[in-house]
């Protein structure tokens, strides 16, 4: 208690300074007056009395100071004062300070972002307990392919060891009110969660039977938030997977998303139910490789012995499972990354962190040095007035800490923003949720980076200050010590080169992206359409289903027309299918294929060059028809019109009824391939995508269309419903991403380089103030001085630009397969780069050059 009281007592001066000071003055004055009175009473004259009183008191000011020191917390007072001074000094040079803060913010932001990503992917410990004890059981065949296990194998293993878990990863269809979703499902033995030591965040992690007899299901956190809105009453409700009802037993915590990082599991169901269901019944007695097996091994267990026992269990006396030839049989491998692996990964990244941070700090240090150089008069005066060099150094350190602190805040914001962007980008494109976020480990990392940055950035000016010689400064003489000029030039030159490379790549990728958007995709991307991949469930003929669905959807208000296809061009999957076309007198051709509905080409905007597209008349029972692409036609028949010819595709004879233009099938970067279009109505099975053209904006019609579809076929499974525009954007995403990333890096690089260059040139100008004064006195005009400074900046930058252009050539050549209609040696891009680099360096050097011209030669020459 008395400790607290003491602290409060000592904190008072920070808030009630005036009152305390006045109180002390009053007290001392009273004391002196009383002493004077006593002296007067003792017989001295008034003047003598007063002087004697003062003498007896001792030093008044000294007493005051000692009292003050005692009264408050000394180090805190000094710190606050230093902070005030530092703040003032930094604000005086706003531009320089801002550049230094930005440099450090960029450095810390980038490294924290990189750290965040690697933390999520590599460093973060697995979300289950004692992950080093969990091992995967596997065996590999001759070709190093992993051979899985069947249920019987699991039973055998579970007999000889404890804590053995088997699971499968499958996709299942989660039914929803409007559209269904394919969700990642783990079918796992009931001891899955207990073995891993994972508890449910809501409800129970139980995979048996619920009270109402239905099988239990456990939801993943992501699915719970996404699909059920984080409903806190979800436990006990029913969901339908693959049309079967399950009761929700619990929800997993956000930290546990399954056993593989980056691929979040959506639902868990139990093996008991699965092995009783019609779909899984046959697996009960099977040894085919459907399951993966993991187990928890108590520490200090011999792995080989255990592996042998497991192996023996499944091979068994009855020769259950033949051992794979030439392989060591069953092996146990750790499931999570070991700390050794993490160390290696971290060690690999350390140079990257170090480099980025170092460059940023070097720039900041350069700027600080320039400032220190400009303030050397001020420092000299302080030294002469009795300040110790350590005091000066402390001031500079506080300034650096302030800059580093501001930079850290900025850096955290940059990192958080970057990670958020990355998260959404990756999830949008691939559905993978990497779970990136800035958490306490990122914060800790940022703190360490900040301290490191302050140390690096602050050392130079502090060393500078400690070496100052008072007399020399006041006489405006003496160099501040030879600076390692070459190191600085190398740094700025290197940064220029890197910026040029990134900027050049940015130009190339952006041009490529624009070309990608303009590439003729084989259809009109501006059409207002809704794309509905669907899997029918009604037991009717495919063509009948298609006809009826098309009719119904056409009746929905706002719909212009409906057609269908196996898949849409530029879809992320399904594009590898090829059919074999026999041509007499030639080798058979493997052609890409799509099955389309009537009026497909018309609706999509694909150009029909000759003949017709697929008609409503092309249905089951009618003669088989095909539409060929230009390339295919040329390969089969040369320049002859293929319409009317007959093709043998996979053994069946088709009549060619039309010729269409070539178009990319999978992505915009591939060239053309020979392509054939068949009538979807004539195909009995396969994937299907409904294509609905709308009169107005397609977005609002998605729901009514799905509703109508469900009305007709309640069990239909739809997955990935979107508008045509969204589909095209998704296809364009990689190109856009590359352009955005390289542009950001290019801009960042240039900002950093400009900061570094600015600092360097400013420092040089400050150092040579006297020389500039001499020149001006000798008749040099301001333009000459300016030109000299700019020329010096150019000489620093130009080697960097040249090296950068060379590196750009190399980099662009490596990336050329990614470009669309852009040559890696595009002269415009290179010229633009060189120009940009020149412009930026001149801009960075402009202000110091201006300041140089404002040097007053008289002041500069005079010894003040």
């Amino acid at each position, binding site marked *: 208690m*008395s400790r607290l*009281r*003491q602290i409060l*007592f*000592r904190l008072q001066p920070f808030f009630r300074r005036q009152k305390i000071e006045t*109180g*002390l003055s*009053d*007290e*001392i004055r*009273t*004391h002196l*007056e*009383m*002493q004077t*009175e*006593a002296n007067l009473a003792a017989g001295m004259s008034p003047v003598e009395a007063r002087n004697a009183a003062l003498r*007896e*008191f*001792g*030093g*008044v000011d*000294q*007493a005051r100071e*000692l*009292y003050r*020191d*005692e*009264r408050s917390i000394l180090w805190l007072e000094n710190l606050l004062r230093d902070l005030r001074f530092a703040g003032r000094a930094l604000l005086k040079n706003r531009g320089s300070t801002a550049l230094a803060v930005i440099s450090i913010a960029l450095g810390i932001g980038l490294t924290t972002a990189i750290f965040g990503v690697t933390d999520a992917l590599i460093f973060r410990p697995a979300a289950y307990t004692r992950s080093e004890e969990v091992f995967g059981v596997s065996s590999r065949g001759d070709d190093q392919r992993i051979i899985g296990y069947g249920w019987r194998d699991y039973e055998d293993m579970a007999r000889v060891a404890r804590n053995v878990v088997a699971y499968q990863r499958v996709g299942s269809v989660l039914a929803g009110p409007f559209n269904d979703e394919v969700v990642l499902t783990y079918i796992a033995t009931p001891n899955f969660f207990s073995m891993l030591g994972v508890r449910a965040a809501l409800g129970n992690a139980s995979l048996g039977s619920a009270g109402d007899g239905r099988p239990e299901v456990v939801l993943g956190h992501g699915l719970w938030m996404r699909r059920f809105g984080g409903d806190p009453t979800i436990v006990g409700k029913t969901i339908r997977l693959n049309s079967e009802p399950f009761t929700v037993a619990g929800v997993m915590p956000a930290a546990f998303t399954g056993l593989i990082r980056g691929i979040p599991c959506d639902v868990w169901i139990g093996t008991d139910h699965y092995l009783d269901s019609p779909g899984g019944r046959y697996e009960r007695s099977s040894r085919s490789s459907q399951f993966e097996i993991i187990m928890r091994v108590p520490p200090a267990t011999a792995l080989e012995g255990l592996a042998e026992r497991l192996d023996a269990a499944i091979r068994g006396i009855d020769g259950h499972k033949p051992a794979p030839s030439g392989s060591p049989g069953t092996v146990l491998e750790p499931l999570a990354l070991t700390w050794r692996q993490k160390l290696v990964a971290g060690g690999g990244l350390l140079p990257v962190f170090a480099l980025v941070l170092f460059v940023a700090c070097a720039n900041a240090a350069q700027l600080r040095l320039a400032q220190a150089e400009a303030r050397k008069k001020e420092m000299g005066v302080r030294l002469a007035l009795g300040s110790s060099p350590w005091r000066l150094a402390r001031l500079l350190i506080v300034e650096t800490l302030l800059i580093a602190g501001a930079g850290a805040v900025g850096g955290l914001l940059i990192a958080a923003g970057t990670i958020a962007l990355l998260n959404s980008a990756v999830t949008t494109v691939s559905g993978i949720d990497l779970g990136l976020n800035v958490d306490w480990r990122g914060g800790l990392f940022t703190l360490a980076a900040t301290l490191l940055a302050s140390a690096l950035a602050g050392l130079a000016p502090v060393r500078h200050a400690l070496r100052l010689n008072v007399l020399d400064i006041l006489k405006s003489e003496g160099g501040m010590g030879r600076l390692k000029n070459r190191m600085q030039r190398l740094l700025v030159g290197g940064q220029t080169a890197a910026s040029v490379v990134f900027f050049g790549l940015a130009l190339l990728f952006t041009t490529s992206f624009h070309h990608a958007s303009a590439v003729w995709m084989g259809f009109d991307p501006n059409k207002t359409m809704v794309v509905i991949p669907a899997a029918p469930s009604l037991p009717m003929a495919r063509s009948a289903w298609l006809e009826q669905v098309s009719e119904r959807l056409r009746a929905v208000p706002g719909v212009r027309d409906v057609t269908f296809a196996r898949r849409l061009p530029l879809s992320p999957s399904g594009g590898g299918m090829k059919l074999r076309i026999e041509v007499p007198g030639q080798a058979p051709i493997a052609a890409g294929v799509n099955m389309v509905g009537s009026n497909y080409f018309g609706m999509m905007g694909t150009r029909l060059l000759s003949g017709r597209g697929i008609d409503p008349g092309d249905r089951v029972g009618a003669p088989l028809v095909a539409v060929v692409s230009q390339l295919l036609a040329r390969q089969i028949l040369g320049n002859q019109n293929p319409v009317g010819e007959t093709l043998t595709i996979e053994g069946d004879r088709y009549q060619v009824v039309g010729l269409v233009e070539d178009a990319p099938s999978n992505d915009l970067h591939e060239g053309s391939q020979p392509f054939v279009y068949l009538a979807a109505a004539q195909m009995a099975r396969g994937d299907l995508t409904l294509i609905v053209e709308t009169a107005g904006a397609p977005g609002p019609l998605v729901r009514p269309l799905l509703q109508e579809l469900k009305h007709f076929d309640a069990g239909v499974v739809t997955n990935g419903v979107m508008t045509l525009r969204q589909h095209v954007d998704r296809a364009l995403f990689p190109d856009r991403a590359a352009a955005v990333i390289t542009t950001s890096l290019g801009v960042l690089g240039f900002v950093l380089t400009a900061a570094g260059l600015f600092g360097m040139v400013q420092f040089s100008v400050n150092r040579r103030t006297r020389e500039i004064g001499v020149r001006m006195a000798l008749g040099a005009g301001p333009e000459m001085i300016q030109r000299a400074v700019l020329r010096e900046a150019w000489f620093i930058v130009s080697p960097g630009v040249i090296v950068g252009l060379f590196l750009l050539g190399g980099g662009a050549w490596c990336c050329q397969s990614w470009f669309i209609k852009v040559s890696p040696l595009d002269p415009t891009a290179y010229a633009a780069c060189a120009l940009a680099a020149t412009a930026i360096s001149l801009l960075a050097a402009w202000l110091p050059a201006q300041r140089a011209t404002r040097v007053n030669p008289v002041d500069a020459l005079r010894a003040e």
Partner: protein
Amino acid sequence: MVKSDLLPGTLEMLILKALQLEPMHGFGLSVRLKQMSRDLFQVEMGSLYPALCRLEAQGWVNAKWGVSDNNRKARYYALTPAGRKQLQAETTQWELLSSTINAMLRAT
């Protein structure tokens, strides 16, 4: 008159002792200390006021503004119960220390 460099702790102990009878202001304290030491100790104000500050921080002494005999505004320092206890403890300690040292000096 001997100007002594008292250890800070000793000065505080003496101040506590001086305040034992009644609250006093700074001047009064310096007079009392001189009196108690029979004119041998002259405490410098540069030591007295910081010492009073320390005592106040520890809570052994209370300070209040009051009016002196001559109608002057003065700050009066008074011993608190904790201060009395502290005085007792320090006195005992000092007596033990000084008797030990005396004995050691007298030994042959």
